């Protein structure tokens, strides 16, 4: 029920945005993310964007996983 899908904002008009989910575009309320702007990735739940996703943080998490994979590979 708490499923939220990431998508990219393509247009903003007032408190509503168009969000592209890999080719499918839907009108989405931006009421809960007033600072969202075109180009931002957002998590969308029940027609509302609930958070702006941080690409920087995503890269950091992936690099932690890669470090771990590398560290294990180094072990005898």
């Amino acid at each position, binding site marked *: *029920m*708490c499923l939220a899908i990431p998508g990219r904002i393509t247009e903003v008009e007032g408190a509503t945005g168009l969000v592209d989910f890999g080719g499918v575009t839907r009108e989405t*309320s931006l009421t809960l993310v007033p600072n969202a702007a075109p180009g931002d990735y957002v998590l969308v739940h*029940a*027609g509302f964007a609930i*958070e702006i996703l941080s690409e920087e943080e995503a890269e*950091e998490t992936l690099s932690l*996983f890669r470090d771990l994979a590398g560290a*294990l590979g180094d072990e005898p």
Partner: protein
Amino acid sequence: MDRERFSSEPEARALVARIRELVDGPAALMEVCGTHTVAISRFGIRSLMPDDLRLLSGPGCPVCVTPQREIDRAIAVARDPRAIVVTFGDMMRVPGSGSTLEREKASGADVRIVYSPLDALEVASLSPDREVVFLGIGFETTSPTIAATVIAAEERGIANFSVLPLFKLVPPALHMLAALPGRALDGFICPGHVSTIIGSSAYEPVASRHNMPCVVVGFEPLDILGGIVMLLEQIREVRGGGDARVENEYGRAVTPEGNVRAQELLDRVFEVRDSDWREIGEIEKSGYGFSSEFVDYDARVKLDVDVPLDAEATGCICGEIMLGTKLPTDCPLFATRCVPRDPVGPCMVSSEGACAAFYKYERNEG
């Protein structure tokens, strides 16, 4: 932002290897989110874990923990020809004591499924002579979208719209679970999308009061495996005498403070109340009612629908499953008398319930 990158196989293998290194005795981790329940089952993560590590599904499905009496109340509203019931699809097949919303709809009741609560306002403005009642089910991920909808109704002067408030809050349930006698749990896989709203800091009191490791976790395979590694490392420290803390694996979506705008809307529209969880009982300060400013949107007050108390004697063990002491396969009714098409207990009712997820993905693995 490519989700595929969070499913990469070499990293997944490395994380599983690390999990196997870290498990050196019995440990139990619990998630409390239906989306985690389904992801763990669907990705086969349980089958990759060492025998000593138990992954448990707590009361993470809002549909499953809604008391049968409230389903009966929604059905009673649907039977009133002056009302239109609007709901997320998850609620349609949930059995009340004698019917379901799906059956009522087939018998002529006006029950409509929507994608967003905002769609209910369109229904209300097109049917000004009917009362449009939205079923307010959900955790903190969903309740802000309904708070925003109530505020929009007020702004647009839509008076024939109300909400049946059945919301649940996650941290009070975690306190209850962590304080259970016998300490069956060693750490919480905290729900990623609830946490976007309430922030990772919302779990600090759970970690400190119960010395219970908490990690906020995302929903892709590497998120879940990575979150388990972080929990196991922390459990090792706690068993060595260290203090439990809150960590955040899902940093791309969750900040320590959460979505402040959403929290403001919640505080304005609702107020925290004690709430009854199906098969578990009342948990203090674990639900929302309407604040005095928005009481005109409370369907319970507006319609005054009274329904009898339910018995809920099912013979199933959903309560024990949600408290972490049993798995679905421990239930004698599982996959025999209790199946998704004809569910007995709440965990089989919703596709995100622990029993339904086990039935669909893990039935033959036990």
